[in-house]
């Protein structure tokens, strides 16, 4: 427990809120962070206002290093541009920062995440006649190929964690250790961290597979397993996700998401 915890652990909070706060904890101060829309934007805004004020946000529409006050609703929301160091182009951000190798941590998301950390945000079913057409890659494929660390923040549902994605939009470890290199993806493979409302799973290039490293307060391993089609390993030192402090909850509720747009309160799942 940190000193802050002993002083003021929050009495009441929801797992959805702790999920955002836990995700933010994985951003280190000074990180160059590639941010997309939705929960990543909330987590990054929260991190900027708490332990990582020097983080450098880069947003694919063109803003480099903005000072985000109100959580933007989109990568093209005027709010992402506030006091940026530079308002550039897509090429400047996705090419000159991301592909160039300068992004420390990138958020990606999708409808499916499989056992090797591959992510699908393109189609459920066949490509040419899909059951469901999803948005597509956006910048996600680029982030998965070039960021040093990948961070995924999603709700924990069984259909989200299949054995194998219907379509690989964003490559994790493809089908095992060494597969990325074989496919031609240079550099060292990223670590992949998945934060959900049930816990945290991490994967690295050595094994190419996920391992549960943390569980949300009150959640056990069986609950995690029953909401996935594959069984990740378990870290030898599984810990409980640290409860948020009162100050953290206040920051989240009053500054980061005051209108409750992103963090649906009154729902624990």
């Amino acid at each position, binding site marked *: 427990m940190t000193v802050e915890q002993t002083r003021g652990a929050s009495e009441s909070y929801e797992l959805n809120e702790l999920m955002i706060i836990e995700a933010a904890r994985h951003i280190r101060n000074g990180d160059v962070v590639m941010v997309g*829309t*939705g929960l990543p934007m909330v987590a990054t805004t929260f991190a900027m206002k708490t332990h990582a004020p020097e983080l450098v946000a880069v*947003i*694919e*529409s*063109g*803003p480099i290093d903005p000072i985000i*006050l*109100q959580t933007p*609703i*989109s*990568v*093209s*929301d*005027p*709010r992402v*541009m*506030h*006091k940026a160091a530079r*308002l*550039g*182009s*897509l*090429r400047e951000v*996705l*090419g000159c920062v*991301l*592909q160039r190798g300068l992004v420390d941590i990138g958020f990606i998301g999708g409808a499916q995440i499989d056992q090797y950390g591959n992510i699908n945000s*393109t189609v459920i079913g066949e*490509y*040419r*006649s*899909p*059951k*469901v*057409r*999803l*948005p*597509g*890659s*956006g*910048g*996600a*494929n*680029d982030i*998965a*190929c*070039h960021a040093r660390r990948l961070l995924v923040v999603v709700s924990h549902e069984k259909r989200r964690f299949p054995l194998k994605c219907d*379509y*690989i*939009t*964003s*490559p994790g470890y*493809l089908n095992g250790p060494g597969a*990325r290199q074989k*496919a*031609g*993806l*240079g550099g060292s493979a990223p670590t992949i961290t998945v934060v959900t409302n049930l816990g945290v799973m991490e994967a690295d290039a050595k094994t190419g597979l996920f391992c549960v490293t943390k569980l949300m307060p009150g959640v056990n391993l069986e609950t995690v397993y029953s909401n996935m089609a594959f069984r990740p390993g378990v870290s030898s030192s599984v810990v409980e996700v640290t409860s948020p402090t009162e100050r953290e909850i206040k920051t989240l509720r009053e500054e980061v998401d005051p209108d409750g*747009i992103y963090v649906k309160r009154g729902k624990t799942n």
Partner: protein
Amino acid sequence: MISKVMGLKEAVSRFVFNGAVVGLGGQNIGRCAMAAVHEIIRQEKRDLTLVGCNLSISMDLLVGADLVRRCEGGSGNLERFGSTFCWRRKVQSGEVEMEDFSHLGMVSRFLAGEMGLPFMPIKSLLGSDILVHSAPSTVKKFETIDNPWNPGEAVVLLPALNPDVSIVHVQKSDSMGNMIIEGFTTHEPEMVRASKHTIVTCEEIIDTGQIRSDPERTTLPHLYVSAVVHQPWGAHPTSTYRYYDYDADHLRFYQGCARAGGGQFKDYLDKFVYGCESYQDYLEKVGGKERLWQLEEAMKNLCGIKKENS
């Protein structure tokens, strides 16, 4: 000095043709060229191929109006407001083809196009299904080569993309077509420079003297522009940085119609596009001066942003 200023009717009539490859400016809820899209729909330009990075409400409206054969882009999405529902429906049914790239992939294609090159290397896409699957009418989506200076290192080559006509909505342009884009530029510089023609709709027409006295501020010079149309609020319901915020109410309303499809979507088109002689009629229908003033104020209040010269 040649003036390229003209009305939107003439610009669309002259530079958008059936079967054209049309580059769409804007991204999600930012600076989509909505006024131009409304006019394209009224003139029923059909069999279009729409290209861009994030394809948003401007794409969805054209798809919903049955004028689109194929899309090439990185995503179809209105983020917080949901998917692009007309597009989703028609891609699922096979009526519209979608050829997927990543956003860096699309930018790289425009980059090749703007540099007068046949293709552009990229290090994304490897290992993903973006290189495994393609749309039915695609002839050759990509090539993978060995880096000639580092044999064994795979590099993907993507074909250049030179749209027949691109449409962008910008803050300021002079009558020659020298334009100033304020805020982020997304994929527009590359796309406009790669295009054979570009229709620019703008919030303000400024004096060429102003451009020439401060030419570092010119985002794109007149060489690439075929038509300049003065169309304030031309991006509504998306935002235009420093001028007005996005209109969440109208976006939600549009999304409801798009998601429902059928008669409800037809009613939307009839009221807001076909039933409007000009974009001014549309602006009246979405709330007129009162609503527009609210969006303008919202932008002004946004972190103390002030419109230049206001």
